[in-house]
């Protein structure tokens, strides 16, 4: 009896936690040697036509306030250390989104001498959004997938 009561309380707490987290994803955007194509599409997804604030997502200025680190571009050696440091500055729980083909695995820069071939070679990545650059629809779809991952189930 007591155990089930405790479990129910635990369940309630996790439910509130996951509901709050998935409805309030604050994004911090890092341009790690991107060509700016992905960045423009990412900003476009904040503008009136797509407006990801509907999902509670918001662009925050400081990594200390963020939940999601959005990385664009192929990470070159100069950015590698900076990216790690920014990742460390984000408080737990945190998620990393690799936006674009470059961030996913090199993209058009594949085989070049000073690229990392993917953000996942530097920091752990939760979600890849492919495309060169990905359309805002793809970004919204990716965000929905991230919400599903947080609530631990499928959206459909």
């Amino acid at each position, binding site marked *: 009896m007591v155990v089930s009561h405790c479990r129910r309380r635990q369940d309630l707490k996790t439910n*509130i*936690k996951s*509901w*709050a*987290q998935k*409805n*309030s994803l604050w994004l911090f955007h890092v341009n790690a040697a991107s060509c700016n194509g992905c960045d423009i599409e990412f900003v476009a997804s904040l*503008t*009136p036509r797509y*407006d990801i*604030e*509907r*999902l*509670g997502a918001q662009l*925050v*200025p*400081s990594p*200390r*306030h963020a*939940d999601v680190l959005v990385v664009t571009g192929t990470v070159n050696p100069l950015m590698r250390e900076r990216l790690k440091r920014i990742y460390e*500055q984000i*408080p*737990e*729980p945190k998620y990393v989104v690799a936006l674009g083909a470059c961030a996913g695995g090199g993209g058009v820069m594949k085989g070049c001498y000073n690229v990392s071939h993917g953000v996942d070679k530097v920091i752990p990545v939760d979600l890849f959004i492919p495309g060169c650059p990905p359309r805002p629809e793809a970004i919204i779809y990716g965000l929905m997938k991230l919400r599903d991952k947080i609530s631990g189930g499928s959206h459909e």
Partner: protein
Amino acid sequence: MINWIFQLLVFPGLTFFVWIAFAFEWLERKTAAKIQSRVGPLTAGPKGFLQPVADYFKLIFKEEIIPRNSDKFVFLFGPPLYFSVPAIGAAFIPILGEKGVLSHSYDLLFILFIMAFSVLMASMLGYAAGGRYSTISIGRLVLQYTSYEVPLILSILAPALLARGLSLSKIVSSQISHWHVFYAPISFAVFLIVSLAELEKPPFDIPSAKTEIVAGWMTEFSGRPLAYIKLTKNLNYVFLSSLATTLFLGGPLLPIDVQDEFLKTILFLLVFLIKTFSVGFLIFIIKSALARIKIEQATSLLWVITTPLSFLQLLLIVLFR
């Protein structure tokens, strides 16, 4: 005694004001979104109404990072203290009658003290965080404060002069038939401008300028301290709009006399909420429509334009009263 504590902590005190603060943030984000022809928060709760609540809970459950060169004690215990400042101020606002929960005959002075204290708390928090951006931001905040304090006091003085008293209950009760905003319109405008400066909102968001100094003095805060700071900012919004309601728009009072106690309470509450939300809405519209100005422009605007204007208003009141 128990009744008094209930009034102070639940209704119409702290809890009530916190819920209004959440509603204010939702309204602010929705208004900004509508002006930019977006939708704004939509998925959390009906029409996104629970968005601020979700933000708050998320921040509560997050990790707190304490920077190495920060003052740990102030860093952790400063934010709740900062929160308590407008929370105490809100208890002076008359909602269900002519008197607030805490009220005495010179409470207007105490409210001025509270507003100064809130800036002091903010600068303490910024210095405790110990980052470069916070330090720059605090310099700007204090500069801005020194320029808006004189017009703030002068604009608050106008309703006090009209009511011939320094207590909020006297100011409210003198406005049963005619609101002070009709006799002191310039002071009301100055008060709105100064509230924008106090709230660090555009065009006066110089201390927390996003594109220049990251997030201003809040840069280093995360988790629970950040949740407290965000909540305090919204509570400041509510506090200033309800103060404008009390000083210039007649507070909760009605010109008609209602006999039934219960009905009277409900009517007072409704009137108060409508007025406060209208003032808040006005501030949101001004805020969303304007862009940031430079620090010297802000200082000269506050010193050169608003200060003489509020003096002029005081002079007019003294001459024609």
